[in-house]
């Protein structure tokens, strides 16, 4: 075990996969010599060679199309879209091609590609470097969507994603790259040093897709979260004094429905937390699933805490961001209802 930040853990996952399989290669904007704008691919080109990790034109659609073609040949590309906000030019490739290729060709061709992308807010990135577009991918039949919340999971989930024969959207909460973040933006920055989930094995291991983690066991209310919001949720539970169970979904497709149902059946209450805006967000699907499967166990209405239904506003980052205070209020409402 070594202490790693999430960046180091992701870098280690990519390093392990490049060493493990010559059919794995990496490309994306600025990922080569420079090592990526967040340094996730730092040193990989020097260690593994120019054709294993190289720079791509500023062409997200081209990057994904090229990766799909490589996948059809038999390679296993892992590509980076520099910010999740910039993934939309590639949306047609992801929806109409990557997600549909296996189905429409009756298994003659498929797209074993992993699309990494820094995502989420909390870094004063404004509208174009802060968004959380996971729900639009979750809606697409044929795509898997993974969102880690800590270094250990990040490495294990990224390796599991790279080993998948289906296309995976791997969203990296950039506010967690260098340390856990509980939403208290005015407090001193924390690093991953000393955090239990920052102990990361050097070699190859996987964290399976579709298996949620119970971060905190509790009896009275279930809090569903993923990515940065896992840390916000944990802080909110501690501040509220409510005995809540915190579940980190880790991937939203595949979704660990059994873990959700087991927890809500036990607690009888459910609060859903995500950073993306609320209307049409993935919380709506979670709420519907809980209602369909746990209705007779529910003691109070399901609550959603999410970003407001506005674009991500630069100056109002902390007014927009669903921080611990809003989560505490929701937990209290659900307990008092």
């Amino acid at each position, binding site marked *: 075990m070594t202490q790693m930040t999430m960046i180091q853990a992701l870098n280690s996952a990519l390093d392990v996969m490049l060493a493990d399989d010559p059919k794995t290669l990496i490309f994306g904007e600025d990922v080569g010599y420079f090592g990526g704008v967040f340094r996730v691919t730092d040193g990989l080109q020097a260690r593994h060679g120019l054709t294993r990790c190289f720079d791509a034109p500023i062409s997200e659609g*081209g990057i994904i*199309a090229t990766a799909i*073609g*490589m996948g059809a040949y038999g390679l296993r590309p892992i590509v980076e879209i520099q910010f999740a906000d910039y993934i939309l030019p590639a949306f047609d490739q992801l929806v*109409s091609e990557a997600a*549909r290729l296996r*189905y*429409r060709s009756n298994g003659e061709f498929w797209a074993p590609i992993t699309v990494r992308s820094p995502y989420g807010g909390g870094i004063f990135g404004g509208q174009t470097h802060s968004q959380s577009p996971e729900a639009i991918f979750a809606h697409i039949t044929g795509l898997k969507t993974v969102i880690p919340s800590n270094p250990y999971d990040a490495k294990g989930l990224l390796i599991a994603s790279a080993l998948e024969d*289906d296309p995976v959207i791997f969203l990296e909460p950039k506010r967690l790259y260098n340390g856990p973040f509980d939403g208290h933006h005015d407090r001193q920055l924390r690093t991953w040093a000393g955090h239990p989930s920052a102990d990361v094995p050097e070699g190859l291991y996987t964290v399976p897709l579709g298996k949620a983690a119970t971060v905190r066991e509790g009896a009275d209310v279930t809090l569903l979260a993923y990515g940065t919001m896992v840390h916000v949720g944990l802080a909110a539970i501690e501040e509220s004094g409510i005995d809540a169970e915190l579940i980190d979904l880790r991937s939203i497709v*595949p979704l660990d429905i059994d873990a959700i149902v087991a927890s809500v059946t036990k607690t009888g209450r459910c609060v859903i937390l995500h950073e993306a805006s609320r209307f049409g967000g993935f919380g709506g699907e979670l709420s519907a699933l809980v209602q369909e499967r746990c209705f007779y166990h529910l003691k109070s209405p399901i609550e959603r805490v999410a970003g407001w239904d506005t674009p991500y506003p630069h100056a109002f980052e902390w007014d927009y961001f669903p921080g611990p205070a809003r989560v505490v209020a929701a937990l209290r409402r659900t307990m008092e209802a």
Partner: protein
Amino acid sequence: MDDRVELSLHVPVPLTRPGDAPTFDHIDIPAAGATRRPSVESLEADMRDLPYGMVRVLDDEGRAVGPWAPSIEPEAMRRGLRAMAQTRVFEDRMFRAHRQGKTSFFMKSTGEEAIGVAQSLTLAADDMCFPTYRVQGWLIARGYPVVDMIHQIYSNEKDPLKGRQLPILYSARDYGFYSLSGNVGSRFGHAVGWAMASAYMKDHRIALGYIGEGTTAEGDFHEALTFAAVYRAPVILAVTNNQWAISSFSGIAGAEQTTFAARAIGYGLPGLRVDGNDYLAVVAATQWAAERARTNRGATLIEFVTYRVAGHSTSDDPTKYRPSDEPVHWPLGDPIERLKQHLIALGEWSEERHAQMHAELTETVRAAQREADAVGALGKSKPSAREMFEGVFKEPDWRVIEQRREFGI
């Protein structure tokens, strides 16, 4: 006084519409043999005249002339002739099958058969083509079972794609034919990625991507050319310029300004403009581009100048937007007729043999259709509804399993 020029918006319109006398005077067509053939070692910078010429081999007398005339055996030409003729017979029959209610949709490649057939027979068996829906001849040339094409068109129980795809959006990996999609252009970049993968693996295979002239306006086209040029991908990028994108003439895609082959210049790629109705010109251009690709010289953009004789699909009537006799005025003629005349001029073919071949092909296609009809046309037979739930992912997740149960199977 305001002496500024008043701006005006230019909206391209074709020279002729229904009721007008057709003309193709706006298309520059050099004589057969007139366009030079540089060696494949030539630098792109020394070939920038080619996108404005036209690679043509067969002249009006059916002779193969000029520097591009390929070395090709009569037997290979007869094979190409047969595949083109079979494609046309097959498509005519399937078009009628649509009118008879046996399928929901169909598209023909009438007049464009030389492109898919010649390229299919020129490239290697393990190369990969990323087709458009108008190169069905590729499959026929490689001996893909016609009955399986009809099963697919019927979406019946024996449909190789299990009823999941619109008619003619085939996939045939073993025949070097990548999965088709109804979204035009979105596989053009896959051809480049596939070719880059081949180069990455130090393989010898090359890719061929097809796109229509109308679709060159999509970002996919420009992204693919950028990647192909940047990484020197071993790929042939083919624009089939058949003059019409549904009802929009090629001017709506930019043909008033320049040729589609000339798009290559901005990317630093060689661009060839080729008579797409000249079987031998298609062979020659494909051989040239393939040799460049196989020797690490990178991609070539080829514009095949051709003409869409039929409508876009079974869903449109071309006489509503172009003169009904426009097809007969197309100056590059018919690809089957031109190759036939060449073989006859060589003493390697005759009208009698041609008529006999046509009768054989008609019977072959009719027999295949009878076999597919026996299984069932659209709505009379279909794969198990279980197939609807298969293949979403490699392994089904709980949603698919639950929903299959909810559906009742």
